[in-house]
């Protein structure tokens, strides 16, 4: 488990990444683990691929298709990032 500080740091980094694509700025301001990229942030589904590519660049990780499938929420993305970082 990530400790609280690391978790907050990860959410903040994700917030920066999704911010250009999020159409619901209020939901972006109050982003938390359960935030859904499409339903809450109103990210266009075609821009999800940009979020994935931006995450790969920001964390210097490779996200395979199986991991990408799950990345619809902040929480799922944090789990993917954490897992990929631990493989390094």
């Amino acid at each position, binding site marked *: 488990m990530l400790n609280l500080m690391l978790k907050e740091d990860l959410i903040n980094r994700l917030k920066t990444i999704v911010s250009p694509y999020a159409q619901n700025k209020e939901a972006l301001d109050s982003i938390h683990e359960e935030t859904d990229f499409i339903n809450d942030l109103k990210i*266009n589904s*075609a821009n999800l691929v*940009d979020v994935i590519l931006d995450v790969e660049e920001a964390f210097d990780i490779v996200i395979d298709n199986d991991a990408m499938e799950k990345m619809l929420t902040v929480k799922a993305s944090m789990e993917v990032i954490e897992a990929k970082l631990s493989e390094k």
Partner: protein
Amino acid sequence: MIGNDLVDLHCASIESNWERKGFLDKLFTATEKAHIHSGADPFLQVWKYWTMKEAAYKIYSRMTGIRNFAPPKLCCTPGEHHYGTVLTDGLKFYTCTDTTDNYIHTTAALHSGQLADIRIEIIHYLGEMPAYASKNPACVSHHGQYLALIY
């Protein structure tokens, strides 16, 4: 069960860069990518395949209750004219795509015969998106300045 997806081409050209490194790899199969690169208009082919995948996914997701982001698993095959099919998870969806100068719209159905019976309403709007709940559409898609309802 029917599904649809619309891409506003003007918006797509601003909001997405299909030539970005990794973009096509994350969304399309090897066959689809080869077709995109060999065609006369890669930009249009990217968004045509994308709307086919999204329209099929909307039915798939409602049928199975599964939510995911797995575009490469939705395999598109172009058919005659504007028809095509999308295969995923052992299921086959039939599609029909309408391409204009301004948008691409695809409808999808589980049976090819259903496609002809789908009524399509595309509303061009500026500013606030029009209210459509009372129209009770079977599926809705909006992007940029277009709202597509199917019945």
